[in-house]
């Protein structure tokens, strides 16, 4: 197995409290990793770090074996498609939202259109493309945010609590998508959930977070990625 991320002696704290203290954590390439833990356990902070949106105060993050430096984070963000817990869609059409990251990269219009159409088709969003993104249901917002991340054809897809606030049908669609990724093994997918049985059924590996620390997890098919617990 190849480690896409290697986290060593990482520490991250907000002004008033420690959010994360990780001795060592490995994320395997082209596998599905679930991060399980209650609210406030540090899942979103960990994801912000993995998406290169934050920088740890101490410790190192290695991405493909190379330490992540402050100035290189902006470039590395382009490898990651990040779907936040409550995704924010811009005040524009679904089509423009999905193509936004490509527009930021200066891709030509025809490439953006073709990619948006392909991703929307894959996620069943074609009928919504010309709708105002701010008039969508919670499930539709989640899927558009996923489509927006996938349009960038990222190496890593990070999904923070993708099942929260969703109706059953959308939960099923996201689960199917995760199953598909697990079989295809062409992307590294990391998602968080409170639901351990769901994490076990949908992932290859599990990271168990509690109070900002990672603990070994050993039950079911999924394996623990924590070499040394904090």
């Amino acid at each position, binding site marked *: 197995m190849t480690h896409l991320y290697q986290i060593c002696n990482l520490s991250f704290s907000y002004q008033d409290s420690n959010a994360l203290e990780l001795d060592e954590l490995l994320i395997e390439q082209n596998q599905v990793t679930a991060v399980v833990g209650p609210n406030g356990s540090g899942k979103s902070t960990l994801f912000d770090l993995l998406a290169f949106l934050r920088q740890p105060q101490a410790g190192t993050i290695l991405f493909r074996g190379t330490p992540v430096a402050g100035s290189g984070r902006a470039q590395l*963000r382009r490898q990651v498609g990040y779907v*936040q817990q409550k*995704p924010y869609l*811009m005040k524009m059409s679904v089509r423009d939202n999905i193509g936004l990251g490509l527009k930021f*990269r200066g891709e030509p219009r025809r490439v953006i259109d073709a990619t948006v159409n392909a991703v929307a088709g894959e996620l069943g969003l074609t009928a919504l493309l010309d709708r105002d993104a701010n008039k969508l249901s919670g499930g539709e917002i989640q899927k558009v945010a996923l489509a927006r991340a996938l349009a*960038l054809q990222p190496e890593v897809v990070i999904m923070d609590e993708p099942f929260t606030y969703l109706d059953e049908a959308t939960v099923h669609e996201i689960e199917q998508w995760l199953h598909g990724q697990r079989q295809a093994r062409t992307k590294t997918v990391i998602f968080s959930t409170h639901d351990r049985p769901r994490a076990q059924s949908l992932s290859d590996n599990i990271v168990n977070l509690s109070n900002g620390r990672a603990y070994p997890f050993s039950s079911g098919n999924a394996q623990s990625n924590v070499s040394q617990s904090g």
Partner: protein
Amino acid sequence: MDYFSTAFGAALALIFSFDREVYTVVWTSLYISLIAVTLAALPGIPLGMLVALRDFAGKRLLLQTLNTLMALPTVVVGLLLYGLLTRQGLLGHLGLLYTTGAIIIGQTLLILPVIWNLAIAAAAGADPRLLPTSQALGASLWQQGAMYVHEVKFALAAALVAGFGRAIGEVGVAMMVGGNIEGFTRTMTTAIALETSKGEFEFALALGILLLATAFLVNFAVQRFQAMG
């Protein structure tokens, strides 16, 4: 009351007869203030986005300074600018004193803190997820700023209206560095002050009504724009 109603009737007659003198003053005021708003918005909005997006040493001091400058007396701006533009002043050689250019510079300086500060407030009122979302999508700093402008455009429109209102309603700068020259630098506010002192109350009232109508129309246009959102 009779005096007022007579003057009001005469003022309406001046307005609806499209009196050349009245509308020359209105046009002078409008174009000076519109250019000043544009010139203040060009740095004011990007600077507002930048200050909102970045933390830096002295940010609190800058915000306090901008808050103070929002209430800057127009005559003080006029006075300082006069000192710079007068023949003996640092910029006297430019020959700008008593020109519309001088009023535009003064009004731009007057409303820059207003637009800058309100742009910061507009960006601060944006959804907190906007910045991480833009960053996660790989937006550069300029693209992040552009997304903020897009997402808070209605609040920014209100900032421009506030700036325009301050510019078109001010009298200190226009009087001190414009000189109130008929057909050239005479604006609605300086004309109102002058004509009232001359006893031409109906002329001043006509300009007052048009000044209010301008403010109403601009606000109406912005409200229509905001309703589109």
